[in-house]
């Protein structure tokens, strides 16, 4: 079997497994009909969409599969920082004191997925919105800016996300 073909098969089966796990969680029944419908459905959807779920140019599973413990730690930190910056924006709404600024910086993360996740994490925390993600170059609108120095702004906005994400996707 050609390596291209094998890689496609691996991607398709991973997509089908993830979809089937989600189906099991959502239906939460061990009914034979439900199990069979889910299997057929997830295989069909995986055959159609595995190219979107895992892009064909991903070199291997190492750039795609997260480390579960590190991922849980990152999610916990994401929720904590979401609430922390929410309270900061809440205070800014009440006092009306804001210093919005557009800052540019680069990320040291290598995989596409990790870059997408860091852009999403920056947008999820109120007070920072990712305007553009171009390769490793992020354009961020920062509501409560304290500096215009590029590297210092990068450390403040994404530094702690980045060091956690480096452990999730090496």
């Amino acid at each position, binding site marked *: 079997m050609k390596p291209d073909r094998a890689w496609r098969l691996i991607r398709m089966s991973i997509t089908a497994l993830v979809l089937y796990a989600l189906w099991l969680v959502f239906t939460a029944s061990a009914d034979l009909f439900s199990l069979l419908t889910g299997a057929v459905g997830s295989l069909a959807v995986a055959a159609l969409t595995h190219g979107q779920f895992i892009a064909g140019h991903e070199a291997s599973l190492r750039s795609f599969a997260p480390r579960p413990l590190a991922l849980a730690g990152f999610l916990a930190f994401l929720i904590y920082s979401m609430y922390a910056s929410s309270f900061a924006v809440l205070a800014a709404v009440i006092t009306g004191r804001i210093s919005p600024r557009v800052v540019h910086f680069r990320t040291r993360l290598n995989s596409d997925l990790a870059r997408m996740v860091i852009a999403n994490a920056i947008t*999820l925390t109120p007070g920072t*919105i990712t305007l553009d993600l171009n390769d490793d170059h992020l354009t961020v609108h920062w509501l409560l800016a304290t500096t215009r120095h590029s590297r210092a702004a990068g450390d403040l906005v994404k530094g702690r996300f980045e060091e956690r994400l480096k452990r999730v996707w090496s």
Partner: protein
Amino acid sequence: MDTIRTIAALVAFAVAWVFGAVGMVGLYRFPDPYAKMHASSLCGTTAVFSIMVGALALAPSWDVAARLVVIIVFFLVSSPTGGHIVARFAWNSGIDPWKAPAPPRRWLRRPAPGHEDGADG
């Protein structure tokens, strides 16, 4: 146990209410689309997330709780993606971000009386 869960859910719903209300106020208070988007992410992200946490505290069984966790994870992916699309469109169509007016430069010359412009817009 049930009372603790009800109290936890009520606290989460109260937090959601506060963030939703303040986010709405910020939507009218902030000067430009980008700053308004920060305020709307307050009620679009934090308030919705708090409501889901409250629902998780009230979940009657483990399979409902598992479903809620899956929904929360999907929400954490989809909500910032939608916000990013709006912000990216505003940025690409060339809307200039609002900037706080610069404070008077006192070390050059003393500003004329009545010329003081504060930092809040």
